[in-house]
């Protein structure tokens, strides 16, 4: 395996796993705090039990997310020293703040997990909220660093030198808001659907129905609301990409030829050599409308971009289709949930209704991984859009493939363990949390 490909694969793998651990680690505390609040207010013990059960999950995911995050902060340098040498001082601001937020999160989590019967009730509750807030803040900050790679600002690149560095400007680059918004909502919908799906399965199997129904409701309200809001933030992101990264947008759509009344292509198999998409469904003018708010205006295609600056088209296109497809599916399920909640309470006992959520358990994370692929693969061949190529950044050390194999092994082992532990948590619900 080529060292460059190995380094890219290792980074993709590490981020792909870290993104799951950290999304769950940042959203679950919010669910936990809601349930905790309900317990303090209603004194219904089921909410306390849900809070404790979830907090175990949070601890497991936090620990896994913390170590995979530590690995990433080193991998940036281990794999991309050429990038970090120049980028560190420019986009380091969000990382320093993230270090602070993460630290606060760890402190607050220590209070929360070990604070039962030791701390004042409301102080204890607040520590849970702080875990959630600092977790989300960490997520936003890291995404802001990534958005700088997509939309670099806060420096001047003159004769191969990075001068006039302004870390704050770099942090608040043009893409940070849309990317942070899209990612945060995605974290809520993915985690909401995943957690709700697991509780739905337990309700379907008629195990501790009261416990699981309450837990299901908290998770799915967030998941469904986020899934319904997500297309709006997606629209902001797409418009931003059209403006700042036309190559990425064109690859997402597999849109080869610049023209007016640009069509939106749904599905299909891009044929890069022939510069067309086979078997796709074309909706004329819709891409123009999405990008420019009118059906006529010209959208720039891949023909405007030199081949050496184009991202891999097929991967970006497929990933985008998968993201949108699953996103739409979740939005639909989300709408059905709110209909059930407001008008059709009887659906909650129907097998098909629960099965729908059981099947949708991984949907959010599939969409999330696909979306992440669009962002990262769509940025290629650049590591800093338009400034530095990924190939210029890679480490000179040979043999990275072995490191890649090792990381693959570790991440798969870790994931197997996390699933194993969660299974045991759920298995023990009747004994530990809902006697």
């Amino acid at each position, binding site marked *: 395996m080529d060292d460059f490909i190995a380094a890219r694969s290792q980074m993709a793998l590490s981020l792909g796993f870290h993104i799951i651990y950290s999304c769950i680690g940042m959203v679950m505390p919010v669910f936990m705090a809601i349930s905790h609040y309900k317990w303090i207010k209603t004194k219904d013990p089921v909410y306390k039990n849900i809070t404790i059960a979830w907090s175990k999950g949070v601890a497991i995911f936090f620990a896994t997310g913390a170590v995979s995050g530590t690995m990433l902060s080193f991998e940036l340098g281990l794999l991309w*020293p050429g990038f970090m040498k120049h980028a*560190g*001082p420019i986009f380091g601001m969000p990382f320093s703040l993230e270090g*602070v937020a993460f*630290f606060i999160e760890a402190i607050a989590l220590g209070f929360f997990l070990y604070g039962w019967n030791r701390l004042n009730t409301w102080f204890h509750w607040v520590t849970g909220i702080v875990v959630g807030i600092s977790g989300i803040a960490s997520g936003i900050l890291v995404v802001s660093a990534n958005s700088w790679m997509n939309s670099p600002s806060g420096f001047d690149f003159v004769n191969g030198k990075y001068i006039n560095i302004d870390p704050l400007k770099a942090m608040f680059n043009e893409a940070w808001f849309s990317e942070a918004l899209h990612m945060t909502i995605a974290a809520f919908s993915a985690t909401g659907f995943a957690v709700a799906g697991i509780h739905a399965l337990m309700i379907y199997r008629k195990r501790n129905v009261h416990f699981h129904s309450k837990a299901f409701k908290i998770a799915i309200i967030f998941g469904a609301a986020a899934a319904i809001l997500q297309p709006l933030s997606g629209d902001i992101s797409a418009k931003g990409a059209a403006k700042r990264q036309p190559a990425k947008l064109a690859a997402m759509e597999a849109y080869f030829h610049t023209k007016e009344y640009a069509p939106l292509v749904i599905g299909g198999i891009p044929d890069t050599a022939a510069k067309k998409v086979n078997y796709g469904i074309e909706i004329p003018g819709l891409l123009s409308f999405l990008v420019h708010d009118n059906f006529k205006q010209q959208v720039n295609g891949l023909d405007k971009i030199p081949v050496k600056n184009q991202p891999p088209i097929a991967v970006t296109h497929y990933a985008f289709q998968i993201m949108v497809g699953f996103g739409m599916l979740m939005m639909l399920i989300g709408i059905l949930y709110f209909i059930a909640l407001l008008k059709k309470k009887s659906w909650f006992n129907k097998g098909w209704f629960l099965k729908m959520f059981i099947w949708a358990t991984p949907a959010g994370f599939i969409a999330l991984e696909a979306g992440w692929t669009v962002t990262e693969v769509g940025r290629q061949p650049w590591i800093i859009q338009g400034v530095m190529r990924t190939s210029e950044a890679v480490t000179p050390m040979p043999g990275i493939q072995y490191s890649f194999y090792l990381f693959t092994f570790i991440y798969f082992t870790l994931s197997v363990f996390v699933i194993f532990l969660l299974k045991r948590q759920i*298995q023990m619900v009747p004994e530990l949390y809902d006697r």
Partner: protein
Amino acid sequence: MLYVVILFLFAAITLYFLLGGADFGAGIIELFTSNDNKHRTRKTSYQAIGPIWEANHMWLIITVVILFVGFPTIYSEMCVYLHIPLLIMLLGITARGTAFAFRNYDAIKDEKTQGFYNHIFVYSSFVTPMFLGIIAGSALSGQIDPSAKTFAGAYIFSWLNWFSVSVGLFTVALCGFLAAIYLIGECTEVYDIKRFIKKAKAMNIAAVVLGALVFLASHFEHVHLADWIFGNLLSLAAVIAATLSLILLWFIISDKKNKQWIRVLAAFQVSMILISVGHTRFPRFVIFKDGSSMSLLTDHATGKSIDDLGIGLLVGSLFILPALGYLYYSFKKKDNGQAVEH
């Protein structure tokens, strides 16, 4: 502002050594505990580090962030030439962090899986500080050779040498020593107190022996460690202070009333060692084979990045330090209520 950042860098490294190191040490102590007593050791160390162990390891993150934002060339050079030890250290951190969390949060506590987590935990507790020490030793050893022509020359012998390895072992002994001293104060039963005092003494002897090994290795590897330390007043003073505090520690260790004092003395001793080495090589952070070096005073990020980093760290510590202080305080009140409620 550069000096503020450097101060934070050294503070973060020292705190990581004292807090994270004691944390690694708990695993090292467990490794060197007889099977009959393992359970008791685990229980004590869990009570001691349970609530604070995540926070202890954040100092490493802070250290890394300061390095890559403030001193990007130093960070990237270290990442290139010390890739392999960094990788092994990362594996250790990962294995250890997850094993610790998993063994406490596994809903079913059967012997087989718990035993598996324990195994991973104790061995990675040994390996991780060992490689942290190797990395630190390598940065100072002058074996990093950017002009090396072979893979081994550039990426293996940069860290695999007697000096770095003995610094690694020395670090392990110091971590074990810190943990044993720390755990003495956590025990309630005389039996355990006696056990940890014995452990602390053993680890201390190991540290002294391995410290001598470091000097010996430095001689063979042509690292002028003795000249560095004995050649300047502050480093010499720090080493003497460490030795004196060590002697004092041996005198007062057996008395239970002194448990806070022996912690202070142990922490003082380790800090003095760090200060001694840090001061004698300052501002050089990484030394290369050809004698050139990378310096904290010249190889740093320019103007605004350093200023913003310094401000970020100052503001951040306003939030972190009181919260951290309160966390330590809250769980040291000795109520020893149920650690985790089921």
